[in-house]
């Protein structure tokens, strides 16, 4: 238990951080994000491949951030960071896993599957947000509520 006036920057877990590491983590994340955005906006890859590529990008970004920004390794003085990461795994599985299961069951009952397939294989690109004036039955006065 550490109390008192010791310089917090001398703690071993703080010593792990270097500005080079932070910049590298930041740069890698930004680069991957830009790459993914460029691929999505240019539609240069077929939809399924696109999904794969951006998933891989996201995966690399996560690893880079864990390593460069969060400094998670298995050393003794980093034990709390590691514990936090381990705690995250079941939560990740629960939220993503159960959500996936829920939606797969929900779609069976509520979605028109012929429409669903167009998500992965769209015939035309979806139009941008429709103009307010184009929408029938829209209330155009922001003050009057419904």
């Amino acid at each position, binding site marked *: *238990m*550490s*109390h*008192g*006036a010791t310089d917090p920057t001398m703690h071993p877990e703080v010593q792990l951080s270097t500005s080079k590491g932070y910049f590298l983590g930041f740069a890698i994340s930004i680069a991957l994000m830009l790459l993914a955005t460029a691929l999505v906006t240019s539609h240069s890859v077929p939809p399924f491949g696109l999904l794969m590529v951006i998933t891989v990008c996201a995966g690399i970004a996560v690893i880079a951030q864990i390593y460069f920004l969060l400094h998670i390794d298995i050393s003794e003085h980093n034990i*709390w960071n590691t514990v936090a990461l381990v*705690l*995250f795994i079941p*939560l990740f599985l*629960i*939220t993503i896993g*159960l*959500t996936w*299961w*829920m*939606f797969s*069951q*929900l779609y*069976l*009952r*509520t979605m028109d599957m012929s429409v669903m397939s167009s*998500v992965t294989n769209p015939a035309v690109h*979806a*139009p*941008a*947000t*429709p*103009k*307010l004036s184009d*929408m029938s039955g*829209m*209330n*155009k*006065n*922001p*003050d*009057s*509520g*419904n």
Partner: protein
Amino acid sequence: MLVDLPGGWSPLLGRLAWSQIPYANPILAPLFVAVVIGAIIILGLITYYGKWTYLWKEWLTTVDHKKLGVMYIIIGLVMLFRGFIDGLMIRTQQVWAVGPHSSGVFGSLHGYLTPFHFGQVYSAHGLIMILLAATPLLVGFMNIIVPIQVGARDMAYPYLNALGLWITAAAAALIMISLFVGDFAHNGWFEYAPIFELQYSPGVGVDYWMWTLQLVALGTTLGGINILATIIKMRAPGMTWGKLPIFVWTSLAANVIALTSFPALQVALGLVAADRYLGAHFFTAGMGGNLMLYTNLFWIWGHPEVYFVILPAFGMMSEIFPTFSEKPLFGYITMVLASMAIAGVSWLVWLHHFFTMGAGPFVNTAFSVATMLVGIPTGVKVFNWAFTMYRGRLTFNAAMLWAIGALFLLLVGGFTGMMLAIPAINYMVHNSVFVVAHFHSMLLVIVYAIFGSVLYWFPKVFGFKLDEFWAKTMFWLFSAGTVLVFVPMYMLGFMGMTRRLEYVFDTGWQSYLTVMELGIVVYVFSVLAFFILLYVSVRDHAKNRVGADAWGTSRSLEWMTHSPVPFYNFAVLPHINERDELAWRRQHGIDQVRPEHYEDIHMPNNTGVAIILGGLTFVLGFALTWRIWWLCIVSLLAIILLMIIRSFKGDPGYIITGAELQRMEEEAYRREAQVLDSHHSHPVSGGVVGNAMAYQRNDSSK
């Protein structure tokens, strides 16, 4: 611009215009005048008495966890009052607007609120009560009590603590200003996709809702990190996990939930922002959007959140029962395990909020079973409290009454929760007022625990007890109000009354609604009793002063230091021998031991940075709501710059010398002796008394 913005927009003022000020509204305009006059009077009084420097130095720039906690609680109480007024308005509208022949005023066909305004009132009521009343009140108590109970001098990160408070204050200010500038959301406290999309809710209401929630989430997450770090790293020597006071355990469980679940909400809100500000389609009905995903994401946070607010309340009850039963808490270990189990299971049940979405029998059954599992640890707790009181020497003072009331409400809320957890029943009563009654029973558990804690810990923080007579009067009025409002609500739920009705079509429900209106009037009287309670207690405070152990039967560490607690909490950090350290010391006759000599201690400095950052956060939230882009950029840059400057400056803290400490301690002891009028001598110890260690000695390990 990326989205097709309805209504006007100017570069200078964004969507803001004079027409957004509701000066013609018959309710808001007089209220606005009253608020302005009230503010002028308060500011005038502060100036007249020359209290600005005091206010700035002692409160606004403080990093003292107790003062920050008190300010959290004040924010919570103010917002509780605001939310209560909303509740009063909802009840009054519903009792008025029954049947086609009911009258209407103020432009409303029935009752006095138009559907649009009624929607705003219940949306604000829900958001305020859960996130700006219950949450700050609980965070406030955790702030005050946790560091003292673990034997620390402050939180792990005092400056971060102040930052969390001022961001929460910014959120409260943002939702308050929505009363007078523009509108608030009118689609319910948790909103729905796709009605919150810009096309369907073109006003600023949803934006107010979104940024308020985003700010509270940020503030609470910062607070959660701090409390976790404090519990893990700052425990006094000798305090192993098995000796941690139970309130600390529940705070730990609660903040693990907060830290892990709030990000889900923040992501969901961020995606809503992308939809509304950037024209994205995350939650739209078509074009690749998925509106069910919003409900899913919201409740992934939403259900853990309800346990985030109930667990500290459980901890409060677990502190109050033993003190006034003069027995240790029954089943400490099971209590700890139950808290952790509740925190764990709280992650597995969120789908019970939308059984009716239609995910089918397998999914619904799984979540139904998981939901019912929560009943096991909760039941363990109820039995533990009952066994704590069993054969105890019970004192039925006001704090104890609130705790017992909480226990009964927990049963009501728990059992109705179990009913709702059965999908077949849920399909019948989902979105009825039965659900509203269920979660109000649960949230009232929290309110009861909080008022119990106000009474219980008030003498610790301020050095004198609150008036018993008025506290009990308030309790009975409040409880009468609770019965009168919520018993008919359960019944109406069974009869099929849906929630959020601004017009009640079935005249057969009139009598029930009348009883509920009566109940809310009784609540009004209990609020008055609370104000009288505060007034009488402050007036008579000299008569009600207390010593360190205000109740004489307290058990945990916070009762070992002076009341009011000095800013350094403990002059010499105690050495922890047992779970209920004070009870143990009393038993061994060393509860009066004083340290033999004092060493220098190190304390953090005050800082004005936190409140300035809070103010800038408010400006940012306001600018985002009204889409005043230049102001967003300016305030965001200012926030980032200030944070960078502060982090380079750091805080070296300052030293209180042993001599100074000794002087302050002796003065505190003198004051206490006057109060208690006690003449018994106080043994002095450098550490070991008999075979027990009272304080950590210098030679023992650090």
